[in-house]
């Protein structure tokens, strides 16, 4: 292990990200531009999250990496191995044991605690991008709190489907000010953003933006009085651990059309199975 470039990034890049992170924390939900470096992996693998993790990780941190809730996907395993190699850090699959958790598309079911840092990989940081392609214009919309278009988009859903059809990357408003893309987590996870005791950091590698939700920050999902925000619910409980309150994935069990619903959060599910066994 090369101590000089601990955790892969050079010291100047880390300092630049450090300065941007302090600004992100000071202005919750605001996207801070940063001059990221190229990472040795393709963008789809979460370079933004990897850069944030690399810039905050210390030798005595315990790291957890999840992809869609699972610790054992190819993406999660290779990012975990990357940090074992370049930082020599201890890793874990246990949410409760981790100091830093890098995630793609989920927030763990096990409640986070004060002092933990959750790092999200973000593909598209700008929640207004699908309405307005110009960065200059979206910045102006954020500056003027011109968020009516976002409500129009959600209301078009209601007109067309009778409910808000957006189920992932469901937009939130942070501390009553900035509308923010929570990354492609299921809207099931949105309530966990609100008042969470952990620090949540978001990194977008391609667009080189980072943003933050400090601990205990009010985060509300956008909705309407006559159509309040609702999370996904299932008829089933987890087929493996019996949980009736976790986010479930439908998995195919055989080639005869057999299927079952299981927790997307593998650590949560395995811990529950261990507890009841």
């Amino acid at each position, binding site marked *: 292990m090369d*101590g*000089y*470039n*601990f*955790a892969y990034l050079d*010291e*100047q890049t*880390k*300092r*630049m990200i*450090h*300065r*941007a*992170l*302090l*600004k*992100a*924390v*000071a*202005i*919750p939900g*605001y996207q*801070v*531009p940063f001059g990221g470096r190229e990472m040795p992996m393709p963008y789809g693998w979460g370079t933004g999250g990897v850069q944030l993790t690399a810039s*905050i*990780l*210390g*030798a005595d941190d315990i790291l957890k990496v999840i992809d869609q809730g699972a610790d054992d996907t190819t993406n999660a395993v290779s990012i975990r191995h990357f940090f074992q190699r370049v930082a020599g850090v201890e890793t874990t699959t246990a949410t409760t044991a981790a100091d830093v958790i890098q995630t793609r598309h989920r927030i763990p079911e096990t409640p986070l605690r004060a*002092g933990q840092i959750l790092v999200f990989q973000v593909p598209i940081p700008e929640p207004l991008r699908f309405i307005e392609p110009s960065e200059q214009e979206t*910045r*102006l919309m*954020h*500056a*003027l709190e011109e968020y009516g278009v976002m409500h129009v988009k959600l209301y078009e859903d209601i007109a067309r489907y009778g409910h808000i059809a957006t189920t992932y990357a469901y937009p939130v408003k942070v*501390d009553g*000010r*900035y509308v923010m893309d929570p990354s492609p987590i299921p809207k099931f996870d949105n309530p966990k953003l609100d008042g969470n*005791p952990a*620090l949540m950091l978001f990194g977008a590698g391609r667009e080189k933006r980072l943003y*933050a*939700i*400090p*601990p*205990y*920050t*009010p985060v509300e999902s956008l909705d309407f009085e006559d159509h309040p925000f609702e999370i996904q619910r299932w008829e089933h409980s987890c087929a493996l651990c019996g949980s009736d309150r976790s986010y479930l994935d439908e998995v195919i069990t055989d080639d005869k059309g057999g299927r079952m619903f299981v927790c997307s959060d593998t650590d949560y599910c395995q811990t529950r199975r261990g507890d009841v066994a």
Partner: protein
Amino acid sequence: MTVKTEMTKDLVWPGLADPAHDSQRLFRQILGAMSEPGTLTTLALPAPPQAAPSDALGAALWGAVLTLCDLETRVWIAADLDSPALRQALTFHTGARITDDPVSADFALLTHESFDPQTPFALGSDTYPDRATTLLVVVERLANAGPSMLSGPGIETTRALDIGDSPGCRALKDRLAANRASFPRGLDMIFGCGAQLAAVPRSTRVDSREVN
């Protein structure tokens, strides 16, 4: 922690002995302080020399300078902290550029005594509020007590923070309270008192009621 030192006119301004790991450790403390406004943290590093005529910068703020500044940053120094020794140490250890123009400064070093609400630091713009000066301020004391209550992001309910009673400390509290009116533009402050550090970003609501 071992110390690497640089002699400047027989005053020893310590650098970080192990830059990669020390700056990571100190940054995480500063990030924690900014994320949970008003919490106190003690930065473990050697103190700079107590040679300045008034309050010295103190170990915590010197640690913040070493952690956050480099040749991409501009630093403004208030007259009461300014000295050839500090300038040399800052340049030697960080490569930061020193500026006389507060609006162009990324970081400003000052004390509660030299704080002037009229100093035109950068507040950022409505579209780029991050382009604001971060103030590193030596204060009289740091304690979670007193009538000044903080609330907002990073604070579960409220948190008391006492930085001192001097006219400068009162002016700092008033300036912090004024951040809400200009949000998202504003000034983020990192306070130091010896090795202790606390931060109050612009997102924090400060109840600045006075007690007589």
